[in-house]
């Protein structure tokens, strides 16, 4: 039930920001559209806690900022390797333990890993993430487990 309310809020926001028309007719269309979307989403059973994390706190903003810094650093790292005279890479597959339990947390972790150049998440299961690392430093950064720890502290 809470998930549906949350989704309704998100959809209303999405509609208003996209359309930015406040004529009653257009708003009416919006209400009908949101109702139809909710009905179909409900029928498809895509509204649940794993895709709509209700316990998401505002602290995720800090995580995003930290992630942006990480992404920038690793972008620089990979760019240096690409522009370098000879390519010194050491590609390999590594496995790291994942501290978080919720599916959304796992998704966030996997996508954060992939978003950071130099590491690509290949598989993620309950306790273990398999990732492909391009360089030694990227692998070391992932193996330190800092990212996973940060997500776990968000309560995900």
């Amino acid at each position, binding site marked *: 039930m809470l998930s549906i309310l949350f989704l309704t809020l998100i959809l209303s926001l999405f509609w208003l920001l996209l359309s930015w028309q406040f004529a009653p007719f257009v708003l009416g269309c919006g209400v009908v559209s949101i109702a139809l979307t909710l009905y*179909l989403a409900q029928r498809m059973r895509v509204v649940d806690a794993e895709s709509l994390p209700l316990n998401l706190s505002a602290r995720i903003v800090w995580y995003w900022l930290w992630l942006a810094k990480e992404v920038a650093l690793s972008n620089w790292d990979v760019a240096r390797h690409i522009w370098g005279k000879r390519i010194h890479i050491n590609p390999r597959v590594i496995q790291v333990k994942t501290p978080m339990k919720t599916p959304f947390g796992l998704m966030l972790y996997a996508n954060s890993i992939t978003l950071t150049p130099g590491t690509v998440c290949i598989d993620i299961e309950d306790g273990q993430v398999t990732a492909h690392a391009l360089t030694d430093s990227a692998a070391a950064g992932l193996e330190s487990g800092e990212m996973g720890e940060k997500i776990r502290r968000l309560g995900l």
Partner: protein
Amino acid sequence: MELIIDITLLTFLGLTALAINRIDKLFCIIMLSGIYSLLCASLFVSMDAVDVAFTEAAVGTGIATVLLLSTIGATDTQQRSAPQRPLFALLVVCATGAILVYGTMDMPAFGDPDAPIHHHVAPRYLEMSQQEVGSDNIVTSILSSYRGFDTLGETVVIFTAGLSVVGLIGFRGMQKFGDRQRAAGITQDDMGKHLVLRIVIKMFIPLILLFALYVQFHGDFGPGGGFQAGVIFASGFIFYTLMFGLDAAMRVVSPRTLSYIAALGVLTYGGVGITTLLMGGNFLDYNVLRPDPLQGQHLGIFLIELGVGTTVFSIMVLIFFAFSSRKGLRQ
């Protein structure tokens, strides 16, 4: 500046077409045709045909690739080599091409203000559509009001195409549950396997559906309308089918319901025309729908766009269902 961009895009387009011609791996050709569509959309945008670009974007980005993939899934991934050197065909193509190029020499230059096309009905559309139809987007007012009859024809064409595909391919061989699962390439433990994909698609589906409806209802104000909305809405369903399987998708909306919706769309369009006839106007003359002609136009366009959107959506999903159920037949 824009000229350089256009020329570059056109060069890429030519390169892609050449590569598609030379390669006999069908999969590779599908990938390249995806790129071809992306290039077309960019080219349309850069030449200011935003509504066309929108359609190309909606169709080319997902549905075309998915349908082509289903096709090679049901047939073969390798092109059979031609039995003989088709010299005659080459000759015909070259001759036709030469004639076409010769024909374009007589055509006015791109954007020439003296071109015949700018002196026939275009000035009236440009100058009067605001007062006669009242829509901000002239393309919408041309498509659905001035040329409402043509658009009705196009909608019927799509409807017929859907009927033909279902008639030819149909949903045969789909009796057993397991068959259907395999048909979509889905096995039982799939749901647990793709955690990231599953969650992201679950997040995206409502947004895609709502975005499609936004496009549907904002054709008056910007690029968009029934065609684009229908295709994007169908993309949402295709996402769902790819993730959760054909069977689950058919449980959400069955092929039978879809065919009713498709017919309903065409009937809505035609019905508006009949209503205007009965109310004393011409066929699809929306002015008579309401006392105020502008409001009548608005209502008429709204209704027929709705008809187009529902038809396009349901036919797209029907065709996709038919194609992906076909996959299982060969096993």
